[in-house]
């Protein structure tokens, strides 16, 4: 059942006199803040910086691959570029993107709390993130690191004399930033909910971030110890991963992927939460199968811990364990499909409107489905041997991470931008950006599926001339894609000053965050709300607006 809510007239809306943005002024009031909303803004600025840094490296990589010959840069420079691109995009952009910016801002408000459970820990997370960024940038400036983002032993421990330790320390510290964010979310969702906000009244964004937080808390420490052992091996020569001393490099892979596969779900789950919110809001309909979608997040988190060895099928793990891991990998497709089908069913007979967040959400559904299904290809043992370490892999995870997560992140940023800043982004421009991004993305990464299937290996800076046509297409697409990412950055900055005033609830959405002023007060709620309606209850919202007494002044 769907309810049509007429958009209230926003033309008379004014910015509230007091909000978290103007309560205090000065750099110190930002750098020492305990306010989750201000910390979210600090994260927004820093991850945007690292996104464009990592993105410019992607641009250089694509430029080098325009021609079959190595002409733009030497092979070791190329190695350093794709390593840094991976490290920055994964640890400094994708992992913190939706949780640390949007989640940080929205989750406490969604559950009806004044802040996250541990505000100081939250600020510490951001500082750790900055320290991690400094380590990573220094590794880059000092001469780079060329292990690939996977730090594979014995390459990383024995054969390279680049700045492995500096970059590894950066990842170690970034890991703690993410552990503390996850810990904060779990405690907040368990212990800070407003009266009446039961588990099954939580917006699905909270559920998916909760699932991702479990992965952060349980997975990241294992990465931390794996990295510590690599650092100890490089510096003092212990031999846990060193075959000459009896150690096994495969053990590193097990420990590394025990985190890094769940990390994929750390990256995608919060994005799925964004999509649930956006799809429901712009179809004016409760998410179909709320409970199934909520539990599918938890199921993805759970299964996510038992599939890591599918990254190691060609590395000599036993056939029997490969068989089991292959089966478990395909099982992950089930909860993912539950989500996709439920979103489709939510759209069915909804009153759909095509605002920018919705366009990005549609992009997500299509691209994530392709990315997810090609993951099943790679999870099947026979196909994997042919396709792994080729551009097919590159295309697969970019469809999930860029086509999926980045689309979801942009959907979320557009969706909650009015709440964060109190101002609207320009609608026509942003729709154009969404379309440009979608076209640019497909042009960049779809040819890479074909390249990979034809056998072009990843991580090489030169290739046989017969692959050039597809590579030129891909590089052309990357140009369009880059444009698509620059646009939001420019018009959103513009909208900070010149955007139309948004008002409290421009989308007529039902979450608690839309029932308070935008931008919110520092303490979010003047009175802790008592929740007496289900999530996504548009009837409740319609009735509420009907009986609302509008006061002037």
């Amino acid at each position, binding site marked *: 059942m769907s309810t049509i809510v007429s958009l209230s007239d926003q033309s008379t809306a004014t910015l509230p006199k007091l909000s978290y943005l103007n309560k205090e002024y000065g750099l110190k009031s930002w750098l020492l803040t305990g306010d989750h909303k201000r910390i979210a803004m600090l994260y927004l600025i820093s991850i945007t910086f690292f996104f464009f840094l990592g993105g410019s490296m992607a641009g250089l990589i694509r430029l080098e691959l325009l021609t079959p010959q190595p002409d733009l840069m030497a092979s070791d420079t190329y190695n350093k570029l794709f390593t840094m691109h991976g490290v920055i995009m994964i640890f400094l952009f994708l992992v913190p993107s939706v949780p640390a910016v949007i989640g940080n801002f929205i989750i406490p408000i969604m559950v009806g709390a004044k*802040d996250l459970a541990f505000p100081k820990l939250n600020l510490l997370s951001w500082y750790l993130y900055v320290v991690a960024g400094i380590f990573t940038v220094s590794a880059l400036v000092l001469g780079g690191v060329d292990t690939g983002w996977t730090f594979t032993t014995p390459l990383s421990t024995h054969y390279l004399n680049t700045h492995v330790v500096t970059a590894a320390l950066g990842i170690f510290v970034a890991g703690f930033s993410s552990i503390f964010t996850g810990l904060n979310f779990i405690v907040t969702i368990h212990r800070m*909910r407003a009266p009446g906000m039961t588990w099954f009244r939580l917006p699905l964004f909270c559920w998916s971030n909760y699932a991702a937080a479990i992965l952060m808390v349980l997975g990241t420490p294992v990465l931390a*110890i794996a990295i510590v052992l690599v650092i100890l091996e490089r510096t003092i020569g*212990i031999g846990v991963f060193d075959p000459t001393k009896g150690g096994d490099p495969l053990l590193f892979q097990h420990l590394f992927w025990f985190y890094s596969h769940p990390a994929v779900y750390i990256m995608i789950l919060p994005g799925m939460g964004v999509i649930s919110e956006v799809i429901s809001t712009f179809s004016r309909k409760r998410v179909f199968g709320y409970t199934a979608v909520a539990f599918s997040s938890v199921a993805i988190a759970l299964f996510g811990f038992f599939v890591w060895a599918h990254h190691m099928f060609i590395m000599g793990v036993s056939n029997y364990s490969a068989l089991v891991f292959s089966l478990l990998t395909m099982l992950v497709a089930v909860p993912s499909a539950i989500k996709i089908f439920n979103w489709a069913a939510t759209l069915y007979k909804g009153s759909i409107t095509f605002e920018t967040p919705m366009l990005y959400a549609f992009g997500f559904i299509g691209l994530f489905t392709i990315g997810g299904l090609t993951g099943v290809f790679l999870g099947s043992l026979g196909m994997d041997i042919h396709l792994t370490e080729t551009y097919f892999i590159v295309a697969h995870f970019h469809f999930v991470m860029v086509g999926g997560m980045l689309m979801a992140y942009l959907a979320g940023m557009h969706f909650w931008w009015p709440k964060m800043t109190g101002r609207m982004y320009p609608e026509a421009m942003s729709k154009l950006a969404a379309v440009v991004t979608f076209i640019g993305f497909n042009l960049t990464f779809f040819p890479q599926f074909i390249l990979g299937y034809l056998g072009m290996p990843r991580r090489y800076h030169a290739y046989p001339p017969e692959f050039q046509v597809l590579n030129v297409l891909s590089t052309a697409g990357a140009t369009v894609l880059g444009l698509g990412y620059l646009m939001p950055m420019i018009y959103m900055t513009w909208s900070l000053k010149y955007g139309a005033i948004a008002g409290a609830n421009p989308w007529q959405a039902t979450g608690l965050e839309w029932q308070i002023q935008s931008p919110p007060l520092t303490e979010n709620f003047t009175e802790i709300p008592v929740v007496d309606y289900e999530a996504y209850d548009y009837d409740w919202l319609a009735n509420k607006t009907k009986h609302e007494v509008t006061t002037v002044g």
Partner: protein
Amino acid sequence: MDSHAIATQPAHGEAGHESHEHPAFLRHHFETVEQQKEATAFGMWLFLLTEIMFFGGMFAAYLIYRNWYYPAFAAASNTLNITLGAVNTAVLITSGFAMAIGVWCAETKRKRGLVISLLVTMLFGLVFLGIKYVEYSEKFELHHVPGADFSISQFVHPSAESHEVPLGADMAEKTQIYFSLYFAMTGMHALHMIIGIGILIWLLVRAQQGAYTSGYVQPIEYFGLYWHFVDIVWIFLFPLLYLINRHPGR
């Protein structure tokens, strides 16, 4: 669902915040002391869970290599000083006991008792680290530290009085894995103790000012949890590292 999450006290307006009656340690974003206690306790236990996963990686490595290289592990383990190890275990348990007394003192508002038990906790912690230092330096003298200086001669040609079975050179090389894990595991454990002692110094200063003996015991309680966790890690490390295939009196 769980009723703990629901703030039981009605919210108060902004203006009334200053005049509102609540203990000074209640943070502004919590509604009640009860909610703050439950949130912080939950957070602390979650943190300990991440610590378990952190050490878990090394325990997994230990399990695998011990199964592969059992003779090397047994021989290398026998070179550790079991007396020092056992004394250290006792020292650490005593330290943990003093910490437990400290938590009790804080709960029953005994400031002097709290300060003394924290001091005892710290003292025994330092004794543990001192003994560990002696053990580590012994390893350096024996060339049992992994790296360029590592020597397998003791395992290939054991001295007559040690009653050890000589290992083949190939297996003897694997003792280096044992010592790698020994240093990584006890080193990470010692690092946790050093961090703990750092926190203890801060807690001592605050306890001396009477911060934890007027109803606000959480910092002491949670540090106690951390300290006991570090103890428990050692309780696993001691048998796994020191007591492989010991034959007393042989």
